[in-house]
């Protein structure tokens, strides 16, 4: 009886385990295997919001403009455009041979439809505000006007006009963002909001979506109708969803990936020795910062105190000893490498750390704190080894230099986000900002009063006025001066402590040709090719 039961159990296990393994896929000629840290939320360009979703969307879709391998703006679905003298009217000419993945022509109407859908509050697009300067966009986002009132119209089938309420000198770079990609109207009409799935998603990029197994892999293959298909070298792309950095590294080592999304934070020196030629580390338009809650004590109306804490942090020690992956110490808010811009720096950036410490102690005294009135603060960060190491280092710097006692509170990412936004319990909190486009505006504008991403609750009339004046400028030089002045005001107020600027980190197989590091960390699969000798990893 018992033996029979065990045997039955065994048999059942084997039967269950052996049923229905998928057939092996047909071997495609050249396949690029890329790592992806997390699943996209959606491949609907209007619903997507993560960096990873953008990575996949740039392979399957295309905006009016695009980026070259090295991060230069190049024509995309539009082959030419004109800008009016006042900088308010843009006329785009859609390529005659721009095609959807089903062979239909991409028309100006597709873009009008898609841009209206982007700003329609019913869509719930995280990037709706990206094109907030288009005529009527803000009123539509707020629900006060219907989407049809958006200042975007067709002249003929291949000509599109975008009207702006204020000049947006970086508009062309915005139009590379996946949120501005066109969506195929008929799919949407036929399948509703869930159209962005294998089998129903029609896209206009170099690749089309074949399959998506959430948590595992997204498979793309060449879109033969793509206008520049002749230049596409790689036939198929696999974006492997691998959340664990260590797993990704091991898969790279085992030869299963050509490109990793990132590398593990630890043992960076060892990685550099192991992969001297394959490890790519490059400046990235993203800042790691500690923010102050400016709406409550002790930091409300206390710029001197905030400055003292900022000055007492030895950023060089942080980037070289604590993180040590090539990050740059941050003395500005806007990341270096932004086009047409020279970031302002803290006025103490040129001092030595000892001099900064002396000044910081003086500022703390002036703010009313000292041995007889010691300052006790709380620092919140999201639970992770890297955040913890940085927080511990900052805690000890504040203690050693200023005698400030810091309580470290680690919270799950979602909890920290919630607390940051509520501004009820936070004092100092850890956050970051990744630039959406290559312009200083992407960093500065989130600090405008009332911006939903303005986590410290910074509100400065002077800063807002400078941003307004910059926005009204057509002349790029004058605009730049206003933006730089706005950054100077921002830095002097110390609503945030920028700690360092991120770097992008990839392992790129030596078989991959055409990889170029760039500050946006955009790497279109269509620009890459594989060495012919070893086309499969």
């Amino acid at each position: 009886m018992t033996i029979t039961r065990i045997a039955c159990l065994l048999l059942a296990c084997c039967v269950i385990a052996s049923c229905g393994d998928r057939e092996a896929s047909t071997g495609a000629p050249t396949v690029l295997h890329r790592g992806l840290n997390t699943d996209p939320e959606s491949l609907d360009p209007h619903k997507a919001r993560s960096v990873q979703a953008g990575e996949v969307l740039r392979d399957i879709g295309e905006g009016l403009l695009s980026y070259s391998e090295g991060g230069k703006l190049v024509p995309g679905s539009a082959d030419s455009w004109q800008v009016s003298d006042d900088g308010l009217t843009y006329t785009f000419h859609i390529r005659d041979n721009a095609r959807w993945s089903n062979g239909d022509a991409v028309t100006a109407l597709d873009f009008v439809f898609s841009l209206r859908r982007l700003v329609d509050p019913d869509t719930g697009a995280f990037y709706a505000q990206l094109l907030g300067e288009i005529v009527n966009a803000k009123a539509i986002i707020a629900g006060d006007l219907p989407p049809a009132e958006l200042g975007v119209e067709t002249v003929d089938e291949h000509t599109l006009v975008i009207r702006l309420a204020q000049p947006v000198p970086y508009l062309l770079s915005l139009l590379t963002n996946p949120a501005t990609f066109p969506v195929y109207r008929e799919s949407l009409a036929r399948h509703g909001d869930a159209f962005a799935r294998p089998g129903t998603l029609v896209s206009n990029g170099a690749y089309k979506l074949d399959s998506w197994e959430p948590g595992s892999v997204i498979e793309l293959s060449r879109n033969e109708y793509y206008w520049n298909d002749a230049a596409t070298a790689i036939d198929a792309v696999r974006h492997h969803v691998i959340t664990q950095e260590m797993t990704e590294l091991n898969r790279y080592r085992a030869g299963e990936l050509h490109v990793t999304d990132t590398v593990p934070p630890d043992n960076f020196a060892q990685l550099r020795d192991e992969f001297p030629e394959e490890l790519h580390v490059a400046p990235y338009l993203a800042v790691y910062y500690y923010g102050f809650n400016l709406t409550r004590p002790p930091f409300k109306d206390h710029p001197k105190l905030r400055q003292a804490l900022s000055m007492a942090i030895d950023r060089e020690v942080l980037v070289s000893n604590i993180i040590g992956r090539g990050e740059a110490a941050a003395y500005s808010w806007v990341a270096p490498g932004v086009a047409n811009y020279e970031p302002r720096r803290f006025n103490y950036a040129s001092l030595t750390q000892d001099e900064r410490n002396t000044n910081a102690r003086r500022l703390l005294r002036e703010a009313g704190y000292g041995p007889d009135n010691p300052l006790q603060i709380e620092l919140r960060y999201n639970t992770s080894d890297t955040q913890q190491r940085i927080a511990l280092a900052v805690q000890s710097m504040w203690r050693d230099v200023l005698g400030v006692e810091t309580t470290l509170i680690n919270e799950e990412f979602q909890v920290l986000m919630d607390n940051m936004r509520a501004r009820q319990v936070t004092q100092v909190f850890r956050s970051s900002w990744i630039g959406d486009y290559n312009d200083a505006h992407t960093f500065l504008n989130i600090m405008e009063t009332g911006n939903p991403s303005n986590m410290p609750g910074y509100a400065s009339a002077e800063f807002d006025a400078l941003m307004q004046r910059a926005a009204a400028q057509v002349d790029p030089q004058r605009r730049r001066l206003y933006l730089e002045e706005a950054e100077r005001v921002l830095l002097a107020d110390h609503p945030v402590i920028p700690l360092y600027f991120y770097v992008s980190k990839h392992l790129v197989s030596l078989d991959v040709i055409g990889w170029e590091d760039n500050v946006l960390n955009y790497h279109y699969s269509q620009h890459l090719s594989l060495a012919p000798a070893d086309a499969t990893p």
Partner: protein
Amino acid sequence: MLRYALLRLLGAIPTLLLVIVLAFLMVHAAPGGPFVDERGLPPAIEARLDEAYDLDKPLPEQLWRYMVRLAHGDFGPSFRYTDYTVSELIAGAFPLSLRLGAAAMALALVVGLAAGILAALRSNSLADRFVMTFAMTGISIPVFVFAPVLVLFLAVRLHWLPAGWSGNEGPARWILPIVSLALPQIAYIARLMRASMIDVLGSDFIRTARAQGLGTVAVVRYHALKPALLPVLSYMGPAVAAILTGSVVVEEVFGIPGLGQLFVRGALNRDYTLVLGIVIFYAVLVITLNLVVDILYGVIDPRIRRR
């Protein structure tokens, strides 16, 4: 008999309802929300999103609406994977977890029992020491340490097996996950089997069997095995539970898109509907299995159904 089954079925309903309500409240009590991000949302858009997902309504009303949809067999759309419904995600992930777990269980039984019997027969020999050392190691080293080490040697260094899941078709990609998941169970079962086999082999009826001139194989096969298996059999319940929880780790390490990985991701993303869907799915699974076992007991033992 039918009446007994029906009664048991009715008894399961309050349990399930309780699970749903508790899970719903706990998920919504967790701070943070599905649309909270470093990128803030314009208020009008956030309001529409909340409206679309019923988040603007009072909690009891949300619960009521959720229950009504559930009664229609609809788990709702995933908050995070907006292109998919929860039912689709579970339907895609569960078969993988099931197969992984079943294969690990089969492997654990075959290897564990064989090793245990061998160790018992040659007790205190070199083979026994080896098996027991191995078992001790297997129990002591957690899966999240052991699995990457396996990957490092067998996949990265020796290139014998694939390191990950996606993009590797065929049975080879199952080997490391199954072995990693089975290992602690192999160890446990081997120890259990050894102990109980040594116990049985020392009993009088085995001595009698030997005295009759039976060889070792026959003694084990016809006399010792059955009684020795009993402790292992009663360990099967905890073993299934251990494999279910272990699969969460193994799926993470190897990137297998199974239910465990989906659950962890859902919880971190505050994907309310997905987490609830998986909890309810597991609850139904456990309740059904218990029910089936109870009914089977009833079939076997008439005393139970008359109670």
